[in-house]
């Protein structure tokens, strides 16, 4: 279970990333953030975001039109 959830559904690039970063900023290392997005581009983008920032992409799944991500803050 994630420590915090971000609903980014309906938002387009780059808003899911920017809002996720904002949420992560307020969290402590080791905590995880669950993100829901409807932007198909966010699949590649959250992977790139995590590679660049060092945060861990715990999971990346799709359920219908919704993409679910879990990111653990380093």
């Amino acid at each position: 279970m994630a420590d915090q959830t971000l609903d980014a559904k309906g938002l387009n690039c780059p808003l899911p990333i920017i809002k996720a970063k904002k949420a992560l900023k307020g969290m402590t290392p080791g905590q995880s953030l669950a993100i829901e997005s409807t932007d198909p581009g966010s699949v590649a983008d959250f992977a790139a975001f995590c590679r660049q920032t060092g945060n861990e992409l715990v999971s990346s799944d799709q359920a219908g039109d919704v993409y679910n991500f879990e990111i653990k803050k380093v």
Partner: protein
Amino acid sequence: MLDNANDGSNSKSMSIIATKGSLDWAYPPFILGTTAAAMDMEVTMFFTFYGLELLKKDMNLQISTLGNPAMKFPMMGMHVGMPNIVSAIPGVDAGASAMMNNLMKKKGVASIADLREAAIESDVRMIACQMTLDLFEIKDTDLIDGVEIGGAATAIEVAGKSDINYFM
């Protein structure tokens, strides 16, 4: 400033020169600038010529369909362009700009004001070009707070220390 540049750490830096002041061209610098900042990069944006519009307190950004054959709006299942002779009629740009703003809202695209706010919040360094402020008689009080004033040497110093440099 730019302490992390080229030191081999994960942290990189980016500089962007923004030269255009239309609604569509306002997006690339602000999207890449805010996203790079979200990815822990140190970002500097240098605004010159029409790019200064993007720093004004009162932004009224417009698109022009004139001379842009690639600009087509999705409408009733088709993509509709605008012949130049129609684009030249007064009021058409304003109408097209309103359409673009509506389309962006519908598609969940951020407004430029929101992206600029995100840039400020994430400490993106913004520099306005002194020469073009003089040229167009724009007062620094017309610009949002927190903007630095600088010239070509300032922009080049930043570019020299940045991992990524964009000119837009």
